[in-house]
């Protein structure tokens, strides 16, 4: 009997170990080794820290690195601000059918691929696009308005893409909040603001933190939206990794960039958990 359960355990564990080993661990070790190489001449490489030195001293790389981090944090904050009232309405105010319909409405855009959604934004925002024409028709603009290819357009795209991943965990945690607790808050003399601060937000904290982590990771690792909506000024760090690997054939620097991004996201997630005084276990479990 014991031998049997052991076999079952091993069988169940194997896919996970294979997944972790073959798809995550080994490629990362290989990447780490590549990032520690320096090209001397044709096919000759030496071990060195040159790539990291380059990545950390070249102002351009550092600037892009921080820009990507700050913009991702900003995108996460904006997503939270927009998603919270939406999630609250769905979880607490809407009832029955309306609740399901609203939830579906959040989900439906994700039935199509990210590429198509981004193209949708391009059709709306471009100079000969819908919004520009509408403004001219309404007399609010006397010439075509270009709204594409800037940071604001990119931010819109990022927030839109990650909306769902914030709404879902928020709805789940807010639904578990008992209405009577909120009522009790008002009975004890609280106003809207203090009830929100003292009761609703603390209760929703696990949802907020896990939503923020997911959205932050998605924004940081997004390639399509910054490239398509961002235009000439908005270099995103993932785009730089792609450039190094594919366009410049410089795998060594690309691998070093990849590791920097991994460290950055780990540090920011750790910081976020520390700041809110939560552990990873509480948030994920």
């Amino acid at each position, binding site marked *: 009997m014991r031998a049997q359960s052991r076999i079952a355990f091993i069988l169940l564990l194997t896919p996970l170990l294979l997944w972790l080993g073959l798809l995550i661990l080994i490629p990362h070790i290989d990447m780490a080794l590549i990032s520690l190489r320096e090209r001397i001449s044709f096919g000759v490489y030496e071990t060195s820290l040159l790539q990291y030195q380059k990545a950390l001293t070249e102002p351009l790389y550092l600037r892009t690195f921080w820009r990507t981090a700050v913009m991702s944090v900003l995108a996460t904050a904006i997503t939270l601000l927009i998603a919270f009232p939406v999630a609250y309405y769905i979880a607490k105010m809407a009832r029955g059918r309306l609740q399901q319909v609203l939830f579906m409405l959040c989900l439906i855009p994700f039935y199509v691929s990210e590429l198509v959604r981004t193209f949708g934004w391009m059709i709306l925002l471009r100079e000969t696009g819908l919004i520009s024409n509408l403004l001219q028709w309404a007399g609010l603009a006397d010439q075509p308005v270009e709204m594409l*290819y800037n940071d604001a357009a990119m931010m819109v795209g990022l927030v839109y893409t990650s909306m769902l991943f914030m709404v879902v965990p928020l709805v789940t945690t807010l639904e578990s909040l008992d209405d009577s607790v909120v009522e009790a808050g008002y009975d004890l003399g609280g106003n809207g603001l203090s009830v929100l601060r003292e009761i609703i937000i603390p209760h929703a904290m696990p949802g907020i933190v896990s939503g923020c982590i997911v959205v932050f990771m998605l924004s940081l690792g997004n390639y399509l939206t910054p490239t398509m909506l961002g235009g000439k000024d908005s270099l995103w760090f993932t785009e730089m990794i792609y450039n190094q690997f*594919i366009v410049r054939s410089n795998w060594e620097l690309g691998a070093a960039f990849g590791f920097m991004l991994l460290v950055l996201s780990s540090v920011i997630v750790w910081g976020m958990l520390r700041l809110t005084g939560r552990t990873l276990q509480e948030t994920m479990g």
Partner: protein
Amino acid sequence: MTRTILLTSILIAGLAGAAQAETLRLLTWGGYAPDDVVQMFEEQTGHTVEVTKSNNEEMIAKLRATGGGGFDLAQPSQDRVMGPQMEFGIYKPIDMSKIDQSQFIESMLMATMANTTVGDEVYGVPHVWGTSGLVMNTAEAGEVVKDYTDLCDPAVAGKVSYRLKRPTLIGFAFAMGEDPFAAYGDEAKYTEIMEKVEAKLIECKANVKTYWGGGDELMNLVRSGEVTASMAWDTGGWKLNDDNADITFVAPASGALGWIDTFVLPAKGQADEAAYAWINFVMQPEIAARITAAAGNFTASAGADEFAEDALKAKYQASFPQEAIDNIKWYPPVPAGLESIEGEVLDRVQAAN
């Protein structure tokens, strides 16, 4: 018993058949292997063809990742054969005796062979050639834009686009009176030229609407009128010319940049017979003319011009008077190391404000 024998014989026949008819995994550009040509080839030779569309950088990155495996025939530009071969060894030599050399335009074949020779082995033969220069709406920007550097003219501010890739650097260098190709062997001189180009491109950045990435993106920008002048391939201009007679390809005053896409055999290719068969098949004049019709560019096939569409020939002649043809700057093989200099320049331009 008879059933077993029957089955076995079918199996053996199947295996024997498989040994002759190979699957050709072709890594190529959009339009270079049109469906009708693939179908004719499959019917005539029994081989099957799997087409993967890509571009120069991705072709080399793909072959590099597998050490030259996964494909049986690839089509990088001729300047991207020698360097990657010396660096990564991702191609195998071409057996010229298996190629019907009489089907090629001789001068182009010789030039490509010379440019793709490593040691004493030849690694590439030419297929499709074309140029990059300026695609513009001649009615709106024709007066102002005569050369690459004119894209920075205030008269066309916010209405121009180009790619942030090496052809732009090379084109601007020529337009600024430099000769980057002559400096290929001299890294210090090349860096100096690239620094000048970098300063110019950063100064020019405010003029640019956006840096285009793919051909279709540019087509949309020009067709909608949001962009009136751009650096692009000749075929792009000729295609748009069908929709709007004002838009066409113009060879810049400093010279269009000429490229030749080649055939190379990846190092771990498994269907060499099919690969040679494909090369000899598509270089026949009638077939080459079909590829010209699909891709919009002319091929290195001798005599294919006769079969090309008159409309395309007319556009070609309008864009390229004789002196513009003589002025085409053909890309020499890129020495290793230059691309990292260019890469840093491009990164800085993209990040500049």
